[in-house]
């Protein structure tokens, strides 16, 4: 485990996490969640959990981002009420 790499990725995880809950645009939040998942995937593989990392890359960064984008596609730019 290289601590500099670890620190850099952990910082990016925190930035992506905070960004995903503060940003106004839903599509941007979905993409930030994808980035968060990908950083977590890198962290898992740094710690040697390759199976977990693979699942995170396929499910977290891939499938759930697609679900989020598909759900955002069904929303409108401004609320109707």
């Amino acid at each position, binding site marked *: 485990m290289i601590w500099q790499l670890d620190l850099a990725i952990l910082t990016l995880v925190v930035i992506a996490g905070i960004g995903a809950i503060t940003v106004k645009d839903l599509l941007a939040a979905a993409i930030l969640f994808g980035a968060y998942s990908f950083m977590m995937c890198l962290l898992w593989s740094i710690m040697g959990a390759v199976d977990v*990392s693979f699942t995170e890359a*396929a*499910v977290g960064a891939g499938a759930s981002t697609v*679900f989020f984008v598909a759900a955002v*596609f069904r929303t409108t730019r401004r609320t109707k009420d």
Partner: protein
Amino acid sequence: MKIIALISVILAGALLVYATVDFPAWADPASPASTHLSPHFIEKTMEETSVPNIVTAVLADYRSYDTMYETTVIFAAGVACFLLLRIPRRKEPGERLYRHVLTGVTVRVKEGAKLPPSDDFERIDTLWTPPDLIIKTICRLLIPFIQLFALYVIAHGHHSPGGGFQGGVILGASIIMLAISHDLRTAVQRMREKVDVLLSAAGVFIYAGTGALCVLLGLNFLDYSALASVLYVDPVTARSHGILIVEIGVGIAVMATIIWIYNNVSSGGKYDEGL
């Protein structure tokens, strides 16, 4: 109110960070997790199940019961999305758009009106951009390789990272890619809703059925060494084969559920026009 929420979040976070001090250090050989079960798995997995990848053996053999219910949870998630979103009425959509393939002219068909029966028109989405030949062709070229890779991931889970969950997600993603690059109707034509439902239930059934077969053959639920008499191999190899069978079940269930959820979410339950 916002300040109270912020303070409580910070307090809870600080408590969690404080609690991590009590964790055993990373890769500590004296931690409780590495003193009882891990040595057994590391030393005995190969001779008990003949599976080189310990994670796969733990996931699908030693803790098989756990994984069976994980698959059931995924199936339940698909059913929940279906029940929440699906609009079962088969009503004709109000306004449809058709494109004349040869000239590229778009025709708007009002509610109740009909298009003369001709193969020259293709249906397009009302919210969708013009067709992109490059994206369509590249996706067409890539999808078979993605599916082949997914099958490799499922089948090679014994030796390398991978297995039913990951392979199933990649297989599902290939169909979702078809839906994104063409349109939802093309993907639904390839993979009908009935097929989705049946496959996602069949995957769980393969898993639980393998367990029940082991009971019928006289051993414990999901003890794959009982399959030795059916598969004509020794009990150790039977456990390896049993893992492959349940991984295939997991892969089928996950693939169908991913596609099913995507269809419901992206079309708002109408299966008509989607992302």
